[in-house]
């Protein structure tokens, strides 16, 4: 059972917070390799000289890709943050941020339909919005406007039908590892509410995959430990011990 966790795709769960970034300015950090060349140029220009590009188009491009590519959506917040900073510095504008947020909001409104027609897209969306929440801070504070929407998404993932899908559970625990603590600070009551659902799911729901139960138990312990695992718990969940 323990070894199982190591093979889970959500390897980020192991590292807890996001992977420490390379401190150089290489655009490889932004993982834009998946874009076509023309778009890569657009993005690189946006990073250096935002007022020279159509920022609405840039935000659309980023959102569209995030909905298709989970690897990208996991770290897209970083490139977004840089563009926001660049625009603010260059022209005191926040057109990019505004467009990005409004686009996110549009997708949020239709999230149930999105989930209905593509679980993958839905999961990418949640990953993306959580990543934006993580990176796009305003005066070092997360954006208040995103708090409830993020909770709404996570609550959706904690519902019984979603718990039956490993991709959704995977996404849920990953986000909680990355932003749970911050989210709780912004609104602890909703976190409590979320965890009631998780406890219920773990205890009561029939037909859950064993991996799902493992992930749920781990996240319950993680939060109970103040958003970190005790070393013994860590050993239980993450070390490979020859049985």
């Amino acid at each position, binding site marked *: 059972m323990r070894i199982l966790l190591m093979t889970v795709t959500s390897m980020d769960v192991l590292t807890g917070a996001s992977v420490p970034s390379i401190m150089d300015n290489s655009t490889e950090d932004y993982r834009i390799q998946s874009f076509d060349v023309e778009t890569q140029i657009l993005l690189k220009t946006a990073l250096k000289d935002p007022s020279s590009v159509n920022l609405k188009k840039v935000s659309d491009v980023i959102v569209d890709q995030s909905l298709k590519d989970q690897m990208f959506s996991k770290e897209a917040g970083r490139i977004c943050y840089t563009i926001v900073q660049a625009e603010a510095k260059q022209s005191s504008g926040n057109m990019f941020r*505004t467009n990005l947020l409004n686009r996110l909001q549009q997708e949020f409104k239709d999230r149930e339909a999105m989930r209905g027609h593509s679980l993958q897209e839905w999961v990418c969306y949640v990953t993306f919005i959580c990543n934006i929440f993580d990176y796009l801070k305003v005066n070092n504070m997360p954006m208040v406007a995103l708090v409830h929407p993020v909770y709404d998404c996570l609550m959706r993932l904690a519902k019984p039908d979603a718990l039956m899908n490993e991709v959704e559970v995977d996404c849920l625990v990953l986000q909680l590892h990355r932003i749970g603590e911050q989210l709780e600070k912004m609104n602890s009551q909703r976190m409590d*509410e979320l965890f009631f659902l998780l406890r219920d799911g773990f205890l009561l729901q029939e037909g859950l995959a064993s991996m799902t139960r493992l992930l749920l138990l781990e996240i319950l312990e993680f939060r109970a430990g103040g958003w970190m695992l005790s070393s013994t718990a860590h050993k239980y969940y993450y070390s490979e011990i020859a049985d």
Partner: protein
Amino acid sequence: MSDFHRSGQNYSSGPSRWSHCRKRGNDGSLRTHGGGDDEWGAHRPSDSRHSSFTTPESAGPVSRCGQSDWGSQVEEDDMRRDVHRDMQRYRRRILGSDATQRERRTSSGSSGSCDSREGENMETDEAVLLRRQKQINYGKNTLAYDRYIQEVPRHMRQPGIHPKTPNKFRKYSRRSWDQQIKLWKVRLHAWDPPADDCNGKSTNDDTLEELELGDVMDIELDFPTLENSQDASSSLNTLSFPAEDQDCVGTPVKVQRTESRADPDMMVKKPPAEPFIC
């Protein structure tokens, strides 16, 4: 089965930290959302409104009805933080100058101006400050302003000649403030970029600009003394103002388009060189 985990055995008898958040009481029955649980109140979009919802003009939480799109919400939060930070800085400055003023007065024996009591008479209503800040931002978010501050550094500004941003922390009536803003923006137009590339209205613009400045020189020049809204309106009637403002009288046709596009509900970024002073 559904309430086995809610049975009394494993719970302390007193209310737990989370009992006020629970959807279910200890007997398993669903609590109604209203029931004294204020915490549930405001946060769901579909909920009935929080009891502290107030109309936009008054102080207090304005909440979701104003701007429901995330972009504007975040911008407003941004602005709110900036306003609070500004307020602190302003207070410190005023307190500092209050102290020195008091010293000077007692030593020289002269009677103090009303400036010394500025700290006590400061505008602190967040909604008012936010609204004023937005108006100021519209004015500053123009090419004219950019060119102005590049051309005339702050320490070189001469009162009366160079427009000064209205002080949002001073107490003014709504009307007085709005007119100060309009006047300030009109004066800023003097720094509009040359309108060569527009519909050939440049000559009119130039003469009008001179006219504007000329009129402006005649009236009260230092904003802080425009305390009385009546003074402001009577002296400003001679100036041309956009027709949209019901306070204004006899707007010359040429000036009519001055601000109809610059205010306030539009997301105006740096407008291209358009002949606002028309």
